């Protein structure tokens, strides 16, 4: 990298990181406002989830306890200052610290997402490449039909079907839970299913596009082996795929809600769903904020990575 380019990269990174700050403030404000917009009174909800009859006196004392009697901006500033120190408040339902609840649920979701990511890579890369190499063959048509179906099928439905087939009929895996070592296979596959379809299509199309480029023609003219040529095509097609994959990671973590519920997986998705049903506002707020931060950070990493990899992006800036 030349000196000018390095200087440019540093400026680019600083600019992007500075931009994150107002975004985070905006997101945190949004997460906070959401609760205020809810038709249910948080004080009343906090009473009701503990089966306390919400009498007017009980509501007043709960409002004081939760600090809801303070002005809106005071509450926001207090909340955000506490959040910066890792204190998201306590759950209305069990009174445990929200942060602790998240930390308990997060490993399960991460485990699920990592295995799903492995599925995505190991299934979509070979199939995508083969489809590009044998473009227009029966196999390619079959895979394209599969992609069409896989993106259209809702994951809860596929999930139940696969439980019936692999678990009830063939007895290969347990129906749900994460107690057995092989119980991760089905839920992670279901989580990966739509992504697999997307990536097969992305890899296939990118490679086919690259095949038309001049460098391929020159390589052919030089008499290079087909395998070597495809290796180059594959490498050049990867940039876009990796960028998309980077953005898929937060989506995998945030998108595990349905899968976690069907498969009784004790992760953050289930934590969030039960919080929504109980109107456990501190957990909902923390979930919205954490997921938004995850997206922003992953987006930043992907952007910087793309800028590093592709000189054209830097020049465009």
């Amino acid at each position: 990298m030349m000196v000018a380019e390095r200087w440019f990269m540093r400026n680019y990174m600083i600019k992007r990181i500075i931009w994150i700050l107002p975004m985070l403030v905006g997101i945190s404000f949004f997460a906070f406002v959401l609760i205020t917009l809810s038709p249910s009174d948080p004080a009343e909800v906090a009473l009701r989830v503990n089966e306390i009859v919400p009498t007017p006196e009980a509501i007043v004392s709960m409002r004081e306890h939760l600090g809801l009697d303070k002005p809106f901006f005071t509450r926001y500033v207090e909340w955000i200052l506490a959040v910066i120190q890792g204190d998201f408040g306590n759950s209305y339902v069990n009174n445990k610290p929200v942060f602790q609840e998240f930390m308990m649920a997060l490993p399960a979701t991460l485990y699920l997402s990592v295995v799903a990511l492995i599925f995505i890579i190991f299934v979509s890369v070979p199939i995508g490449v083969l489809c590009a190499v044998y473009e227009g063959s029966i196999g390619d048509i079959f895979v394209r039909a599969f992609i069409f179906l896989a993106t259209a099928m809702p994951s809860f439905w596929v999930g139940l079907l696969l439980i019936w087939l692999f678990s009830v009929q063939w007895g290969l895996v347990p129906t749900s839970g994460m107690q057995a070592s092989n119980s991760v296979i089905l839920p992670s596959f279901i989580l990966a299913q739509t992504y697999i379809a997307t990536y097969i299509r992305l890899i296939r199309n990118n490679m086919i596009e690259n095949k038309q480029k001049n460098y391929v023609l020159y390589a052919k003219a030089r008499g290079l082996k087909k395998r070597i040529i495809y290796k180059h095509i594959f490498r050049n097609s990867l940039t876009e795929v990796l960028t998309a994959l980077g953005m898929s990671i937060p989506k995998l973590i945030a998108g595990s809600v349905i899968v976690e519920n069907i498969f009784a997986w004790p992760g953050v998705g289930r934590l969030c769903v039960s919080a929504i049903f109980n109107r456990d506002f501190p957990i909902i707020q923390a979930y919205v904020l954490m997921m938004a931060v995850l997206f922003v950070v992953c987006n930043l990493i992907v952007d910087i990575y793309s800028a590093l990899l592709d000189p054209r992006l830097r020049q465009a800036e």
Partner: protein
Amino acid sequence: MKIRSVVFGVILLCLTFAVCGCGSENDRLSKNELVYASTKDIRDINPHLYGGEMAAQAMVFEPLVYDTKDGIKPGLAESWEVSADGLSYTFHIRQGVKFTDGEDVNAEAIKLNIDAVCKNKERHAWLDMVNQIDHGEVMDAYTYRLVLKKPYYPTLKELALSRPFRMISPKCFKDGDTKNGVNGYAGTGPYILTEHKDKQYAIFTKNKDYWGDKAKIETIKWQVMPDPQTILLALKKGEIDLLFGADGDMIDLDSFTALQKEGKYAAMLSEPVASRAILINAHRPISSDRQVREAFQYVVNKEGIANGVLNGTETVADTLLSPTVPYCNVPLERRIYDLEKAKQLLDTAGWSMNEDGYRYKNGKKMLVTLYFNSNNAQERTISEYIQSDMKAAGIELKIIGEEKQAFLDRQKNGDFDLQYSLSWGTPYDPQSYLSSWRIPAHGDYQAQLGLEKKKWLDDEIGLTLVEPDKDKRQSRYNEILTYIHQECVYLPLTYSRTKAVYTPKLKGVGFNLSQYEIPFEKMYFEK
């Protein structure tokens, strides 16, 4: 070469995963373990609070007395006497019983428990008993006296409930109290909570030192499965042995009937436990007219709901509370489906039929809204059924399914014409259920606000609960139930039952008086 070895590694890993970790059903049975699936985790089973699952609380903690089909039976109290004025209850505590942490169960421990409950009055506002307790006294090491402010007649019944009057070892108290949580779950019940993995499962092990008939099954695994469909699949696979639930929570009726027909599983229905009804808000423009409310009683074909929607698993309800409920065998007029009579009543009330097939009064269409809990498929189907019945009489019924919390908000604000309602069921009916009618946060209160004698009704309920004379009490109940029936604030539909589906190897399955308890201690596997 590198890629090949990675691919090979992954395949090998997958195969290893697939081979190990598949515990078979036989392994489980030989271990004498029963797996019960629930959509909910047991959570915090502190017996003095409401955060945990009742069935789990009832397995571990015991009351002074038990409420059974044959009346009140001894629990931790071997015997008891009630003073002539009904104000003091003297309990003789069973000697030699220990909490599972080794603490002795004595009068002092009982006093500490009951005092801990009473210190947290606002949490128990639904239970009038807590307000009626004046104080408790330790008479001697094994004699405890409970003194009431008024002769509250359901005292023994309410002491027997699954919560809050169940006994936990005083060693588990936090700072001498239980309202801010407990340090452990040492009770005296037939099972001990030995392992709890949050949101995954809980293991209950048989209490070998239990004072009564010891449980037959060694361990109970409470498996959490949030999705009812997954529960059904797990049952088919033999991963779970028992499904148990009251109101379409664990298992919906269609699946129940399908499983019953399949013949591979045993299925059982309890006696009627609670009343399914539609609450008619007398505090709203259209339904404030008693004649309109009466017409609604004749519009709905309850037989059709019981047989068509509920597959004959529930019986038609003619009155809000079943005559089998204590004090509820009151002679009341039976109102059977009669469309013509309904039409007549609506005509007399001034709602005349228009060309569009709906009724109008002073240019206003007869449009009412029914709200139900959207998570309950059964409630939706019943609501749709009612909608078509109403249409036949010229009433437009809008049905709106709402999430539980929104539904409760509406209940509290009284912002509904009609709302789906379920009584509390035995053993809370009639005393606790009627008592709750006096609390503004309840839909019943809001719907009854439009009644001319609402104040009388509330006072009468209060007086009935402290009426020492049984006959006088009965006549007060007669008055209350007759008034409510005449005013047509409830449209009783059916009496609901608790359902159990289980593997045929499991024997001894039955029901407790409370639909929220599961009598695991009586179950066993056929050898």
